[in-house]
């Protein structure tokens, strides 16, 4: 399928560019020739019905598929401005994950203290200076709007926090390493409406510092938080464009049917 990609009039700075990306699970082709831009300091939302490949596409950006046998990438995702091809076999997935962090569908704090959860990304990089870690942990927790709730109990187990707090903790963990980009994989699907609201605010806040790519199956959420939207269906990119364009006057009939709820 040929996708309809509408580029904005004032083209913002590019952060990444997917080019003719195919992805296979074994013999099954899960992504079909996806080409689309990811703009710096913008929120790009991936929408589409279940099984359309939006999570699969997202997980290409930090090479999460490399953990499992039987995967294959074709095509490229250029990370800018360094022009690194994220998917190239010469690029170590660990390098990619150090530059692009991720927040998962279900909050997944480690069974460690709140402090150690946030500091983990830095510890992995061999950081040992206590004062530096302290500063970074505070900065990340403030960035995730969690500092005031947990500052007096940083040594307590993270799993004792509420679901919404756990997800903000995971956002803090992702922020602590100053990534270039953060991937959100349906970050609010396990949360109640109030916690969802606070995560959405955070996402809009975070984009000042980081480029955001977010998978959501909630249309309103995509409309609220994103600057750009990509609608995917059965492994194809159907339409990409500015959020207001996509929601107000989509160019493709399929997109319109999906966002108006007639399909999916």
């Amino acid at each position: 399928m040929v996708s309809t990609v509408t580029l904005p009039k004032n083209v913002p700075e590019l952060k990444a560019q997917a080019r003719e990306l195919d992805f296979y699970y074994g013999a099954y082709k899960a992504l079909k020739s996806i080409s689309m831009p990811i703009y710096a300091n913008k929120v790009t939302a991936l929408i589409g019905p279940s099984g359309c490949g939006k999570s699969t596409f997202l997980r290409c950006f930090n090479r999460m598929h490399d953990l499992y046998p039987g995967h294959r990438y074709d095509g490229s995702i250029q990370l800018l401005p360094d022009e690194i091809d994220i998917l190239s076999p010469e690029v170590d997935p660990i390098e990619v994950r150090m530059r692009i962090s991720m927040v998962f569908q279900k909050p997944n704090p480690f069974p460690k203290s709140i402090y150690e959860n946030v500091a983990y990304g830095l510890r992995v990089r061999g950081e040992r200076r206590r004062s530096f870690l302290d500063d970074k942990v505070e900065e990340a927790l403030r960035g995730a709007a969690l500092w005031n709730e947990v500052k007096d109990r940083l040594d307590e187990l993270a799993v004792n926090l509420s679901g919404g707090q756990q997800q903000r903790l995971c956002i803090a963990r992702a922020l602590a390493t100053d990534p270039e980009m953060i991937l959100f994989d349906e970050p609010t699907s396990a949360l109640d409406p109030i916690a969802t609201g606070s995560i959405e605010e955070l996402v809009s806040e975070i984009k000042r510092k980081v480029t955001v790519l977010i998978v959501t199956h909630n249309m309103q959420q995509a409309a609220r938080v994103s600057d750009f939207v990509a609608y995917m269906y059965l492994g194809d990119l159907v339409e990409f464009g500015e959020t207001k364009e996509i929601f107000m006057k989509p160019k493709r009939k399929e997109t319109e049917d999906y966002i108006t709820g007639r399909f999916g």
Partner: protein
Amino acid sequence: MPSQHDTAAIRALIRKHKRWDLIFGLLGLLSLGVGILTLAALFIDMAISGIPRLSAEFFTSFPSRRAAQAGILSAWVGSVLVMMVTALVAVPLGIAGAIYLEEYARKHWITDLIEINITNLAGVPSIIYGLLALGLFVYTFGLGQSILTAGLTLALLILPIVITTTREALRSIPQYIREGAYACGASRWQVVSQHLVPYSMPGILTGVIIGLSRAIGETAPIITIGALTFIAFLPPAPFTGTPPAGLFDWLMSPFTVMPIQIFNWTSRPDPSFHQNAAAASFVLVFMTLSMNGLAIWLRYRLRKNIKW
């Protein structure tokens, strides 16, 4: 089928169904009772004839031809030393093997084969391990009928238990915890050492202790490798000899262990030795039960801090 509105008939039906609940409950209790009561009877019988024989001297005396002066010093010291060797060998090997199989090895027919093998090894009769050890450790490697040979033999015996429980523990860690760690940029070794091993520690420890408490009661393989049944001296205390070679004298020393001492005493015609055997059995059962108790306590303590 009774009509929807016939209250009496519905109640009669329920009463009929519930009768089976009662019957099965009683049957279950009976079957449970057979096992528990037999064990309790054995244990109480052993305790009654053994406990009067227990005294400080019983633990500090060597075996003797006179039943009243005989003790279990060489046996319990031997058991402790053999267990040390077993633990030092089986724990690192078992944990490393399990981690390799679960986290590193690609899944294909060779790993499947290894997996089936390990499961089967857990069911191999212990005397087979004894025969293997006799051929391999005693004759081929020339390690003799020593503490080292016994420790290695029992380590082989409990290796499948340690591997299996460690793998279970690793598998019970949700995949999203691994993904979370990898997403932070961790290498495989960082994920293993900073997450998987600490989180599976309760399970691993339980497996190790259950394995050891099985090994401490094993008699057949130890007899097969030719442990002496009458030992009236102690091995050199570990790590006290002249370095470097002297440090490991104890490993090569002849020895006996608790089950062998018990076996020796029960095969004597003089009934006063049977009392010694009962007392030693009581000590052995107590050791095993305390190890299991320790496993339960450790699991409880460690699990409190690990949840997802």
